[in-house]
């Protein structure tokens, strides 16, 4: 079963095209990351799915059915910012959410403990820090133990400990069989917690699929010697190298993921009569990968 299917969604704000022909599908049991820089349309997309925005054209389905408010009750959602009544405390706010979701109020203490807000449950929302507000929003989405969760930038405003906790929580929820749809502009966050990813840029879906297929990172070996052009032509013959690139003080060799062996590179050069002055393996950064993905589709 697909939890969410998006079909040719378009959204215009006046002349601005926020979403252009976006189609993809979220399988059950996945952690589905929607990755994209600020303003790429992530929140617009989730807003349409939650019926707070109207699509200009295109359709979407929830649980393989035409979407209604009853589907939304089975989905815990944090969209863009924590939205609560500033003058009410945590418990009063969650009671309102629980009433709308038609869930009992007995869950409230439990979800507040999950996000470490139990001690402050009688403080007014307006007295909370940004991180606490974010955690209350996550608590609210967990009310009634829904099988599907939608998180828009869930670690926004959290400190490093809070970020780690939320990521752990997301993984734990996924292990319990829940499907999680998560929008983020943080590439390493998506890489750490997601099983699938869709990449949005300027409203267009660039690519989508399994994280291991999309965010594969090549191995890069940096090598340096006295005669760099000679080094480059020599290393082009090294078995397994995909391509080489001159980069300032050294030559860069690109290998398929986890195939680069520094020892063999060193021996190869030595056998060819070149003494290396520099040799280093580095993983291509995810950011570089992301730029590559997004640059090709301008």
């Amino acid at each position, binding site marked *: 079963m697909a939890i969410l299917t998006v079909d040719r969604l378009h959204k215009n704000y006046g002349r601005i095209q926020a979403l252009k022909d976006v189609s993809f599908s979220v399988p059950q049991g996945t952690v589905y990351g929607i990755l994209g820089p600020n303003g790429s349309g992530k929140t617009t997309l989730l807003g349409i799915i*939650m*019926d707070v*925005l109207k699509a200009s054209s295109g359709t979407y389905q929830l649980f393989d059915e035409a979407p209604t408010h009853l589907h939304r009750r089975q989905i815990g959602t944090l*969209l863009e910012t924590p939205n609560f*009544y500033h003058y*009410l405390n945590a418990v009063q706010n969650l009671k*309102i959410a629980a009433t*709308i979701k038609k869930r009992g109020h007995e869950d409230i203490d439990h979800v507040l403990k999950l996000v470490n807000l139990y001690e402050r449950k009688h403080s007014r929302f307006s007295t909370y820090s940004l991180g606490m507000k974010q955690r209350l929003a996550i608590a609210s989405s967990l009310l009634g133990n829904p099988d599907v969760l939608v998180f828009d930038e869930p670690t926004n405003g959290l400190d490093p400990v809070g970020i780690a906790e939320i990521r752990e929580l997301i993984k734990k929820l996924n292990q319990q069989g829940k499907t999680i749809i998560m929008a983020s502009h943080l590439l390493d966050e998506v890489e750490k917690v997601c099983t699938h990813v869709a990449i949005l840029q300027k409203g267009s879906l660039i690519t989508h699929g399994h994280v291991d297929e999309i965010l594969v990172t090549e191995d890069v070996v940096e090598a340096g010697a006295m005669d760099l052009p000679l080094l480059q032509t020599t290393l082009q013959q090294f078995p397994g190298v995909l391509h080489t690139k001159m980069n300032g003080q050294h030559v860069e060799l690109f290998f398929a993921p986890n195939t680069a062996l520094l020892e063999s590179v060193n021996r190869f050069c030595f056998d060819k009569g070149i003494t290396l002055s520099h040799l280093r393996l580095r993983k291509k950064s995810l950011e570089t990968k992301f730029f590559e993905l997004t640059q090709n589709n301008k």
Partner: protein
Amino acid sequence: MVQRLQLEWMKMKNYRAFWILMSLYLVSIAGVNYITFRAFQEALASQQAKNMAQMVMGHLPYSFPMVWQMTAFVSSFMLFIPGLVVIMSVTNEYSYKTHRQNIIDGWTRRDFIVSKMLLAIALSVLSTITVTITAAAFGFAEGSEAFSLEKFVFVGYFFLQALSYIMVALLIAVLVKRGGLAIGIYFMYTVVIENVIKSIMNYYLNNAGRFMPLQSTDELIPTPVLENLKIPMLPAPDYTTLTIVALIYLAAYFVLTAYKFEKDDL
């Protein structure tokens, strides 16, 4: 229906500004009637003045059955207060984005806007009950005539008027979304703009100004003293037409408010 109103109550019952405004409102209705009551008592202190008033108006202003019309008329000047309550309630949702969250959590857009309409109706009912109690109290306190429901229809008109004033507030709140701006427009419209247009229409269009949205409900409860002087320039109010006009406007407020909220991006 009950659940929607219940949720609105959960939102309001811990909101201090709501209680302050509501207390002010109830005190103002009693207060403004008391001031008018005292003013008439002093103006009509002599038996001669009383006879004059009775001859012109038929009854003394705060005696039964005149008191129903009198209290409804005087209290109607306080109707901007429940209007403010509704504007605050709606624009708060916009600024906290809780209108979005309510829908994300599983309300339909209609659930949300109906809950605000129910708030408007509840405030109108509360206003009408308050006016009824206040009028009865002053009628008995004045005591010159026996209890009578003869002019009680004005309390019914007051309900229409209250609902109209409050629904206009709701419509403006949904249209402009921002609290300060909505309050500004509400006051500008109810106090200045409509009155200017009304006067112009009355002058050029054969008194058509009385059919302006809020004016049509104002006309339902004419100034108790002037009405009976039968100023020849003013046509006598045609209650049936005015009621129908007021109901048409009310239906328009409900439809427009729902349409705007259900069709737009939130």
